[in-house]
């Protein structure tokens, strides 16, 4: 059962949404920490431009496209949820989850290709950052997909529709992180 505390919303933001904003706030500094560290090294070493040139831009672009699309379906799911259409929300959430899975699959192929060409996490510090930052992000994607499936299952039965928006916000944040990872790791060469 939910405690009364959970049902109050003095700040004007529903509790769950407020919490997810705080989650995102703390995630910003986690990704911020590693991206700032990467950025400093990237600017310090001219050589890293050459290292970066071995990443395949179009794969990164494809993944960006996938994530943007999944974000769209996530927000459409929220629209359905607002109108009380649980099954519709669930359907769109499943599309989003599928997008997440595609993202992970593409990434795994990409990494296989790079590793097989000798660009491993220990090749040099650029690749260390590449795999660490992208890997950290990929973990968030996977976590998001799992939660999304749970929320979708409930939404299908029309339960906990407010959660559709919560997972949506989280998913958009994951998308946002990638929007910055993409130019940092792929485009800047």
């Amino acid at each position, binding site marked *: *059962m939910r*405690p*009364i*505390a*959970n049902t*109050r*919303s*003095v*700040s004007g*933001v529903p*509790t769950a949404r*407020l*919490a997810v904003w*705080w*989650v995102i*706030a*703390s*995630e*910003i*500094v*986690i*990704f*911020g*920490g*590693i991206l*700032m*560290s990467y950025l*400093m*090294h990237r600017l310090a*070493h001219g050589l890293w431009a050459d290292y970066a040139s071995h990443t395949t831009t179009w794969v990164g672009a494809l993944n960006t496209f996938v994530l943007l699309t999944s974000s769209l379906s996530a927000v459409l799911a929220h629209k359905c949820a607002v109108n009380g259409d649980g099954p519709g929300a669930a359907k769109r959430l499943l599309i989003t989850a599928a997008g997440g899975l595609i993202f992970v699959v593409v990434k795994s192929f990409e990494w296989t290709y790079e590793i097989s060409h000798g660009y491993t*996490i*220990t090749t*040099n*510090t*650029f690749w*260390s*950052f590449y795999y*660490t930052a992208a890997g*950290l992000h990929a973990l968030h994607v996977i976590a998001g997909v799992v939660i999304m499936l749970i929320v979708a299952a409930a939404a299908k039965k029309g339960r906990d529709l407010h959660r559709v928006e919560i997972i949506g916000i989280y998913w958009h944040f994951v998308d946002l992180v990638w929007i910055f990872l993409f130019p940092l790791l792929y485009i800047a060469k």
Partner: protein
Amino acid sequence: MAETISTHASHDEHHDPSFIWKYVFSTDHKMIAKQYMFTGMAMGLIGAFMAYAFRMQLAFPGMDVPLFGLVTPAVYNSLVTNHGTIMIFWVAMPVLIAAFGNFLIPLMLGCDDMVFPRINMLSYWIFLLSAVVLLTSFFVPGGAFGGAWTAYPPLSAKAEYSLTPLGSSIWVVAVGLEFIAFLLGGINFVTTAMNSRAPGMRLYDIPIVVWMIVIASILFMASVGPLLAGAAMLFMDQQVGTAFFDPNKGGDPILWQHLFWFFGHPEVYVVLLPALGITADVICTFSRKKLFAYRTVLMTTFATGVLSFTVWAHHQFVAGIDPRMANIFTITTLLISVPIAELCFVYIATLYGGSISLTTPMLWALSFIATFLIGGVTGIFLGASGADIYMHDTYFVLAHFHYTFYPIAIIGTFAGFTYWFPKMFGKMMDERLGKIHFWGSIIPFNAIFIPLFYLGVAGQHRRIFDFSNYPELATPEMQAIRIFATVSLLVMLAFQFVFFYNCIKSWMSKEKAPDNPWKANTLEWVAPTPPPHGNFKELPTVYRGPYEFSHPDRDEDYWPQNEPA
């Protein structure tokens, strides 16, 4: 009153759950608070035992320490490292933020539980796991990590330097888990405080201690991220063979120092603020005074919080950062002394015109101010870059931060524990034993660390297992001082048994504590003692601020927040 009805409903749902759900996998914030409290105290005993072991080694080098054994250089390093880590991450954090936060926030805000009880439970279990993980590192080949609690690479990054191939990784993992636990807890605290206040409770009606715990949680959330990322990077350096912190492969060891201290300095305030909050409540109650300039206190605390993000590099003045940066950080560091000084002034001003009764909690609270002042002022020596060139990494630093962390983690905890013990366990504590324990802790504490200031000024530096290799530090006078400090430590530890005896005796005792033994105003004293699941018979409504003591319009000298005018 719809709320009230549903609370009663919630009671019925939760009528006598089985032991395991009531005491082990409980989602009730009060039980989780107790779990945090006792886990923290247990870790505290372990940390204290480590202190005992290495202080004995320092006083009597090479001796076979009773109950411990020989303290070799490797063992000494892992002892000091884990003493620091445990005392900060597994004692100060869980007891001050998690335990008191969990217990006080819902009660003081007049709601029935945290907003996310299950996340709350999850947070505790991750924390417990992290504690277990850390302790396992003492039993792996190579022993526990010995690179100081700051874990500067390359020493912490490469097994061939640290000689603790597994210990250092276990340390990183444990710290990472602990951070995740407190992120979950912090989100819970902040959300509860922002969203679940009792009807009628405006921002300025929130008890200072809740404000402080919430601000501390926010500081933690905003500062820990880079270190979490750094911990991941360090772990990869250790186990995968990356070179984030290896200068010869394009990394930079200084980066870790910044990642660490960007968190490490706000962390000081993360643990300081709750202790200050507890002190504020106790002092107001036992001097029957309204807190002096509540709003100023609040603004000052915010200022401290923001400033605390701009001072971290004063830990690295001589650690190889660019000297030009040190000037900026000197200025910010001395700036932060202003709000902290102001807070101390406020507390002193609160005493003015009061009617002070020196109960055990009050003694602890007052001693917090008296000793924390020493910790605060000695910080100025270290914040002033010019003087820090000499003082850095000496026992002066050590004594300084023990004069901040001991008041925070030990004195603050005891102040809060003895103050809220009736509410937590429904029994009063024995005042006489409490006072014995107080004097038996506070006098030896000063006897331990005042001499260490002297040793520090005399040039004795930290993390040396035996000073005989430094002719200037091996003089008999200095050795005599070390022995004195160690003996004082033994005395202080001995007196802690009085406390545990007092706890058990009071807990066993027959007569129940009244609902509001101290005649305090805040909402937790409105709840029955001890509070049942759901806390309040009827969720309270708030009409006034938390510190309306000795109000001229009333003949009682207190005015509970929930009493209609």
